[in-house]
């Protein structure tokens, strides 16, 4: 059983810091955007190792593209 964890801090001025754990690939950013809201102004994004890890879902998509060449 895998755990997806998102830790969000809202400071006294409404500034948000968020960190994901257990969410591999680019989907971690999409997941954050969907929860925090796309309209917020992001100042910086620091990608962790997990961001660069492929998800099973992602690998399938890549394979499909290669087959279709």
């Amino acid at each position, binding site marked *: *059983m*895998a*755990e*997806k*964890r*998102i*830790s*969000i*801090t*809202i*400071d*006294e*001025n*409404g500034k*948000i810091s968020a960190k994901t754990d257990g969410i591999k690939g680019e989907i971690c950013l999409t*997941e954050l955007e*969907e*929860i*925090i*809201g796309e309209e917020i102004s992001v100042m910086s994004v620091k990608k962790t190792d997990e961001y660069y890890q492929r998800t099973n879902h992602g690998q399938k998509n890549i394979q499909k593209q290669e087959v279709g060449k």
Partner: protein
Amino acid sequence: MSAVIKTLTPFIEKSYLLNALESIGISFSEQGDTISIQGIHSTYFRKDLNGKYKLNHYGYNNEIVTKLPQIEQKYIQFYKEHLKELEEKRLEKEKIRIENERKAYIEKQRQEIIKKAEAKGYKVKEKTNGNEIQLVLVKHTY
């Protein structure tokens, strides 16, 4: 030939005038728009048609005339103090309004995040650390 004149500051606000008289130890009694000076015969301030309190008295040796500059000085002092007080109250109100606006925005942010997270199947744990809100969203997948 030229001339330079200076007028007395018009005593428009009754409360400042009363405070001024009181602060320099002049006894008075009020009746409507008339402030009678006690102990000096037929001497009183009365609101004129222009809206200012004008001193009415007999003769120029009247004790109250010599005290007019002092009354004027105190009147201005009370006027300035009251203006400052009003400004501070206004600023305080503005400060409260801005603070409430900020808190309402953060609360809305918090509620929206929780709502979206729960809709996506996350369990939300919340705690506060001073003025910070900390949300931990957890979802288990198989």
